[in-house]
């Protein structure tokens, strides 16, 4: 009798607090009614927010469910989205990609970070991308019967890891923003691939990388050009796989690194930043068969070109006053005089002179000297 009572006593909380079926918890979810959202797009539309979502392709290639709704805030837009699908519960615990339209990136980046922090379902490690234009277009216009935005972003993700671009997570961006006043985020745009030959059932737009977006503490500061983006990748990330066109040759970056140092003036004041990059590339293709550059000339051309990109990139950081390259932390780590560099960085950054040197080496150059 006592044992039966004990079993009943232990079982009751399991039955009532489990979150399934008959439950005291208001947070129970019926698995059959859940619509798992895999990609979210956020746009700022004046005072209103537009949220666009896609469930991803279902089992047996069932087309993705794509929806878009507006609201006074993010949660209001989510509530309005839920109204569009009354028979199912939209479930955000498995969101893989978060797209921010450029206006949303400009005005509500911090709101988004705080919203994800407070959300019990969303993850800080969700991949974040900024769309040149509207995120809604990227979510809606890239879906058709055969594919959807999640599949396209997954493909982009795979390509990015092999072509040198980095897709940053919201956590990485938030950490960089709070640590160094700036961060990078991969920008994308929707495009009708002009040179592609479409079959009839491939009618939706593609999503292609469009360099990096520079983010400041208050939001989007600037879109970097593809060349500046390559310079930024060399300074901040792992540039392996980047494709570079220099002197009629297409090269692939095999490895690269950068060292950033701060230099003090004789009276002990911060004066300059020196950036030393090393780069090793391999020739993939000669675009002009009559190209007559020697390997040494190609090394020099590559060094000069990349130095120009890096310089341009650092100057953009200085002009915008936004340390999206993490220069402050790089200098602090290499400097033994932390107290000289740590304060008033935003005022200091535009005044520093920058010297960039690139040591480049081109491999696979067997036939270039012919």
């Amino acid at each position: 009798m006592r044992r039966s009572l004990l079993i009943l006593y232990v079982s009751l909380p399991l039955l009532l607090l489990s979150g399934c079926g008959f439950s005291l918890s208001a947070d129970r979810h019926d698995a059959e009614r859940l619509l798992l959202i895999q990609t979210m797009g956020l746009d700022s539309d004046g005072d209103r927010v537009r949220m666009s979502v896609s469930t991803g392709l279902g089992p047996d290639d069932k087309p993705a469910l794509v929806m878009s709704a507006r609201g006074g805030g993010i949660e209001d837009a989510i509530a309005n989205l839920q109204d569009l699908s009354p028979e199912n519960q939209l479930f955000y615990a498995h969101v893989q990609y978060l797209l921010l339209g450029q206006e949303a990136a400009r005005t509500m980046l911090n709101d988004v970070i705080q919203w994800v922090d407070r959300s019990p379902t969303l993850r800080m490690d969700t991949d974040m991308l900024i769309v040149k234009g509207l995120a809604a277009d990227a979510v809606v216009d890239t879906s058709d019967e055969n594919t959807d935005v999640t599949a396209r972003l997954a493909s982009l993700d795979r390509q990015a890891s092999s072509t040198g671009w980095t897709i940053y997570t919201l956590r990485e961006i938030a950490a960089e923003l709070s640590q160094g006043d700036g961060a990078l985020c991969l920008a994308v745009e929707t495009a009708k691939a002009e040179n592609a030959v479409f079959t009839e059932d491939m009618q939706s737009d593609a999503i292609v990388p469009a360099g990096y977006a520079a983010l400041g503490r208050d939001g989007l500061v600037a879109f970097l050009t593809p060349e500046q983006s390559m310079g930024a990748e060399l300074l901040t990330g792992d540039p392996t796989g980047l494709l570079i066109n220099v002197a009629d040759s297409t090269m692939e970056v095999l490895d690269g690194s950068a060292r950033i140092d701060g230099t003090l003036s004789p009276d002990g004041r911060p004066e300059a930043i020196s950036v030393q990059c090393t780069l090793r590339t391999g020739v993939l293709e000669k675009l002009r068969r009559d190209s007559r550059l020697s390997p040494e000339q190609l090394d020099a051309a590559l060094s000069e070109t990349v130095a120009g990109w890096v310089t341009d990139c650092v100057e953009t950081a200085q002009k915008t006053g936004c340390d999206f390259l993490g220069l402050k932390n790089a200098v602090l780590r290499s400097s033994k005089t932390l107290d000289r560099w740590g304060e008033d960085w935003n005022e200091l950054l535009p005044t520093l002179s920058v010297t960039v040197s690139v040591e480049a080496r081109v491999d696979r150059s067997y036939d270039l000297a012919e």
Partner: protein
Amino acid sequence: MDDTRMTRKQFAAAILVSLLSPLLRLLPQTAVSLTGRGAWLSALPALVPPLVLGAILASFQRYMRPGEGMGGLLLRWLGPVIGRAVLAVYAAWFLFYGGFILRSGAERLVSTIYPSSGQNLFVVATIFLCLTVALGQLGAAARTAVLMRAVLIGALAVVLILSAPNMDPDRLSPLGWNDTGHILLGALPLASVVTVAGAFSFLSGYVQPPKDRRWLLGTMFLLTVLGAAICAAVVCVFGPELTSTLTYPFFIMIRSISLGDMVPRIEAVVITAWVGADFLLCTMLLRCAHEAIRTIFHLPVPDRFPMGSLRGGRWLLWLEAAAVFGCSLFFDLPPWQLRQWSDWYIPLASDIVLFGGFALLWLVTIPKRKKDPVCTENGGSQ
């Protein structure tokens, strides 16, 4: 073996598991917001107050008679009036602190996993479980703690290992000499957590001899190392600035962990497992409070009676559980106010009562210690 008593290892497990609750409440966010990237180094200075408290407790323990806890010793040394008053203060603090632990645990569970649920559901369920265990034998609770220690430390290790790919050790640097002040300041929350171990001296009468002190120091050391590891891991993942602004950085870090495509999220299991630490701490505080009250009224040891019995003043345990629940209602505050209590008022009060209080009592009872014989392990005196 006497089932009503605990071995030293079981008692150490009970302390360790109980203190994992405040450890993750105050760390890493509060420590990192005070210290920045050097929070993990705060573990070194944070060892000093617990070591001092450990020495004070060890000094008291030498004079405790067999089966006597801190309550009995204080009543003996301070006399019936002052002794009872001091014990009443400690009992009140344990009940108040227990109420806070209940509420903060429920708030954490609701805000991280069950956003649509009410906190009172979890508060009532937890206090009911705590009372059930407190009515049983303390040795059984300590044996449960041994199992929970394996689960929680295992979960912590899994979390740290699986979070490793997201860690960037560069975020722990640069550190310079000008960070020393911050590092010392950041030691306060960690030290506050570890000094809560002082409350358990009220239960030391239930520990089987020999009264070796190394286990207590070892537990304090392990807690400090765990605190440093948690701070370092979270700072490596989020950076110091973001860590200090996130709501529950450690649990947000867990949210990002996946075991491949098969188990994409594990945070519900880990966070719910942490309720075990709240539950055990609350149970132990309930028993600490009962020990103080039992000593005031010269009541028998509750473990000698059957679980359902109300004899020997065991009805007081029901009343004490009701008091803990009442205190938890006091903490039914907006989250920002609860955080203020959690970050500042409760650690400060805990330091004053447990560290300051015991230090003061140690000073006041110097004359007594000179007169009172030291008790040997077998109950004799020297």
